[in-house]
């Protein structure tokens, strides 16, 4: 037992849970194999989190691999990321949570295999995150297959005779690869081969995290780690092999350390790496990067001065490019009777998703809160697609709409699929050109709009969804027609189509006027109505419409 004089010098970190319930109530051991490097690194991370006092700020992004269960151990914010995507998830957290300390923890299959794109782009953006890369040169969780970092002649179950360059290529050197990028501020490779090297790994992890707390930018620590089970060695043999075979291929050491890097700031012209490029010697840190001092400029290549010009475009210029510099968009003119949970459904290619974006953008222009969430099959065209749009005065909890109060059914399968999900008293807007049946339910409002026929008469069937949204705007009052007209030019990529979309709005307004509002207050209803009658705003929001438009012609 501890004597009165002795004090604890090293103990289990406070950032680790007291017990690990996944292994059974009160379990104290990890799920890792004996001698696994993951536990050692977890301990180092937890200690660093304790010592830096950042436990409440840390978001730990665990990968796919054996460490997928890191969230059972580390008592911090945790996200378990899709395979390879941890740096992308970490970037999102970085951009949305200013005070978060974001750790992306990945293995070699995760980071250097499936997630190679994510790590390079996150590093290249210089996200202020810390990436810890566990390189054990093998796929551990799946049972010992060759990894991108498997060294030549190393035997795995998919390279039983040893990896050969001719057949499987060379091992990927991730730290060196990251070091070709300008943005990172700290890149180091460490090893768990001996106790002394573990202490160096400890120092690197602490430094990387400290840099993040100072908002210096992207830090990357590659940790050579043993996988005794899949290497088919004892834990002690594995560490010896790590030192004698792995380290010569992946030499440990610091590749970059920019302690004086300016805190990363969005929009700043010079990334931290740019500081490094113009070192004391004038030699570029990253060879071959154009614009670095001493590099011959390629004739005709884009020079930095051009990008600076682009960067100094004023907001007004950008608005002019977007065609939106004339008048400010209206805001705060709409008062919703109830939160709008809209489902727009149809074939892929009917403009379902883009119509959803249009609706959401209009809601933003109205000063409302909104979300847009697409759902679609693998096909670009002809498959089914639907978009969920929420519009509210309040913060919106979840973007998905499972029980809409408004359904825009652009085809029959959509009506079949979603009719039963609409809440009683809600609205179903049916594209009657393509839907040959009536709405079966009697406890909601049904509107039959020959949108595809109307659109075809105007010249293209693709604007049917805009007609539908126009009618929805009129019956719900969630957005005004004026807003719709202003937002349409901003939403459409091909400017030649702006005019026909505006005419689609006119057609929708004309249809609504003709079919619903001939007798104010007592509409000649093309829809089945429940007791209680008309939708909020049915007659109050209608703007004047050009009389020359005749959609049914």
């Amino acid at each position, binding site marked *: 037992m501890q004597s009165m*004089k002795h*004090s604890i010098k090293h103990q*289990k970190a406070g950032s680790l849970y007291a017990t690990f319930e996944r292994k059974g109530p009160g379990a104290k*051991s990890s799920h890792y194999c004996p001698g696994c490097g993951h*536990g050692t690194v977890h301990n180092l991370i937890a200690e660093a989190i304790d010592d830096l006092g950042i436990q409440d700020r840390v978001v730990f992004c665990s990968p796919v691999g054996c460490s997928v269960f890191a969230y059972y151990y580390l008592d911090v914010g945790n996200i378990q990321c899709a395979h390879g995507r941890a740096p992308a998830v970490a970037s999102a957290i970085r951009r949305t949570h200013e005070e978060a300390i974001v750790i992306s923890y990945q293995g070699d299959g995760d980071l250097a295999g499936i997630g190679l794109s994510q790590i390079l782009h996150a590093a290249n953006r210089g996200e202020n995150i810390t990436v810890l890369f566990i390189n054990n040169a093998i796929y551990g969780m799946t049972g010992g297959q060759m990894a991108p970092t498997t060294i030549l002649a190393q035997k795995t179950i998919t390279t039983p005779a040893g990896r050969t360059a001719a057949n499987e290529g060379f091992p990927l050197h991730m730290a060196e690869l990251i070091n070709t990028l300008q943005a990172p501020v700290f890149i180091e490779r460490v090893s768990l081969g001996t106790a002394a090297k573990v202490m160096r790994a400890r120092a690197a992890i602490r430094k990387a995290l400290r840099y993040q707390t100072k908002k210096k930018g992207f830090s990357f620590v590659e940790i050579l780690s043993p996988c005794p089970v899949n290497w088919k060695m004892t*834990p*002690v043999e594995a560490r010896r092999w790590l030192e004698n075979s792995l380290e010569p291929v992946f030499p440990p050491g610091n590749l970059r350390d920019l302690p004086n890097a300016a805190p990363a700031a969005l929009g700043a012209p010079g990334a931290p790496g740019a500081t490094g490029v113009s070192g004391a010697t004038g030699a570029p840190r990253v060879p071959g990067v154009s614009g670095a001092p001493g590099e011959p400029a390629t004739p005709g290549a884009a020079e930095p001065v051009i990008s600076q010009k682009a960067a100094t475009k004023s907001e007004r210029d950008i608005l002019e490019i977007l065609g939106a510099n004339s008048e400010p968009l209206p805001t705060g003119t709409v008062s919703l009777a109830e939160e709008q949970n809209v489902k727009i459904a149809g074939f892929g290619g009917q403009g379902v998703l883009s119509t959803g974006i249009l609706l959401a953008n209009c809601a933003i222009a109205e000063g409302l809160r909104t979300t847009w969430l697409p759902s679609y099959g693998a096909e670009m065209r002809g498959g089914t697609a639907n978009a969920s749009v929420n519009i509210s005065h309040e913060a919106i909890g979840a973007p998905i709409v499972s029980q809409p109060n408004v359904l825009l059914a652009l085809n029959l399968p959509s009506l079949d699929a979603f009719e039963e999900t609409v809440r009683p008293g809600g609205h179903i807007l049916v594209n009657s050109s393509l839907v040959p049946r009536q709405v079966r339910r009697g406890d909601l409002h049904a509107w039959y709009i020959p949108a595809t026929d109307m659109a075809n008469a105007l010249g293209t069937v693709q604007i049917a969804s805009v007609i539908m949204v126009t009618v929805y705007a009129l019956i719900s009052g969630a957005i005004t027609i004026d807003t719709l007209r202003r937002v349409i030019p901003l939403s459409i990529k091909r400017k030649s189509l702006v005019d026909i979309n505006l005419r689609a709005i006119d057609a929708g307004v004309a249809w609504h006027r003709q079919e619903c509002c001939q007798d104010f207050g007592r509409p000649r209803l093309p829809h089945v109505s429940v007791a209680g009658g008309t939708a909020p705003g049915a007659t109050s929001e209608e703007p004047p419409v050009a009389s020359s438009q005749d959609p049914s012609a």
Partner: protein
Amino acid sequence: MDSQEKSYIEIDPARCKGCACCVVACPKDCIQIGSEINQMGYQFARFAVRQCIGCGLCFYTCPEFGAITVYTLPRKGE
């Protein structure tokens, strides 16, 4: 525990998987793998030789969570 010793460690048998990394890490050869078997079926490590200098290398090398705790006497002035 002999309070005359500057430092010592405690190994929790229930957490140890007997990987022996601490045995290799210890510069004073204080740790051995015992013959007893714990509930997980591993022969766990034991603090056997009392020459501990409190360096913490076993602690940092250990892949388990909280299997090793290091105790030491406060330095002068603390």
